[in-house]
């Protein structure tokens, strides 16, 4: 993975297998399907549920600093632990977890390239039981909100075209033809996209085996839509996990300086009274 801007944030399945008993490494699985972990997981991995352990369960928000510290401590993670995260759907919610770990300043957090699917497809060892954990006393850093976009920033960026807005949902969600991914419940009142956004579905960044495409391929993909890092980038999707995946690609694989994840995403914008909405297919790319 030498051609990425920050290859240190990615490890291979081989690397994970070789470090299965490394006491400085903790592996965590985060799936869209929160029961997948119980089916079998990377030996020694803890399982985190995105909908209860990686968000505020009272109000809509990411984890508070205190809750993040509790999760790390109960998972046996110290500030100097190398944290490896992987999951299903090519690491959707693994990227969501990594994004929060970066927000709270965890020094060494990486994704397992290819995620759960690649581990299964390669026939690597699985474990059914949860590991025995020695809890730690974890202290997180103050939240780095430069990695996160809030509604007012997105509204201003859209109105002034001050940032490259990347909509990573499917083309049908972008156009407004459907209000949620096919087969999933509709969670918004209006379909379409944020004015000025470019449609670059998250999956275009991946190979068939779930690994990330090469830096050259990724650069061509995004620059072809006018997203070249010359101005700030805001990624969004429906609830913020797919856009975490794209945020990871732009921030660490391509090394763009100013990339934020708008986790409010379409479930916020598409339900907002009076918010401007564009509908229809993708327009020609602009520089």
């Amino acid at each position, binding site marked *: 993975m030498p051609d990425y801007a920050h290859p240190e944030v990615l490890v291979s399945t081989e690397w994970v297998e070789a470090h299965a008993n490394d006491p400085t490494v903790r592996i965590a699985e985060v799936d869209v399907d929160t*029961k997948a972990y119980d089916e079998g997981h990377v030996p020694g991995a803890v399982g985190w549920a995105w909908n209860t352990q990686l968000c505020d369960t009272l109000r809509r928000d990411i984890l508070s600093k205190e809750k993040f510290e509790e999760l790390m401590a109960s998972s046996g993670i110290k500030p100097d632990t190398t944290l490896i995260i992987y999951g*299903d759907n090519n690491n959707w919610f693994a990227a969501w977890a990594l994004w929060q770990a970066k927000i709270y300043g965890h020094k060494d957090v990486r994704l397992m390239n290819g995620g759960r699917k690649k581990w299964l*497809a390669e026939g690597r060892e699985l474990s*059914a039981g949860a590991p025995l954990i020695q809890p730690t006393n974890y202290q997180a850093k103050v939240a780095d909100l430069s990695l996160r976009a809030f509604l007012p920033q997105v509204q201003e960026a859209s109105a002034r075209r001050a940032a490259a807005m990347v909509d990573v949902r*499917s083309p049908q969600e972008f156009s407004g*033809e459907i*209000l949620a991914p*096919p*087969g999933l419940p509709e969670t918004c009142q209006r379909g379409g996209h944020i004015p000025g956004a470019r449609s670059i*579905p998250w999956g275009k960044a991946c190979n068939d085996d779930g690994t990330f495409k090469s830096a050259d391929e990724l650069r061509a993909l995004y620059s072809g839509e006018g997203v070249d890092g010359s101005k700030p980038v805001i990624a969004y999707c429906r609830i913020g996990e797919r856009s975490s995946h794209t945020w990871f690609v732009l921030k660490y694989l391509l090394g763009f300086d100013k990339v934020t994840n708008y986790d409010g995403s379409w479930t916020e914008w598409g339900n907002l009274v009076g918010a401007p909405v564009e509908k229809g297919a993708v327009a020609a790319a602009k520089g």
Partner: protein
Amino acid sequence: MKAEEFQERRLELAGWPVNLASYRIGTEWHCKADNVSPGAGLCRTTGASREEAEQKAIQRAQELLSRTKRNAV
């Protein structure tokens, strides 16, 4: 234990392309159905054979996908 005989195939259900991934862990077969675009998981099933696990997934995915409304743009 490990996943064996991992296999993926694509088919169309209720007008939507779907990816089926199936494999065996021990004696139990597992199947996961995702929509192809955007790649969201629809369901995960088990069965005594690949065919049984896939059939359950196909049935459930068909139910879910048939509820998806297409809007005029």
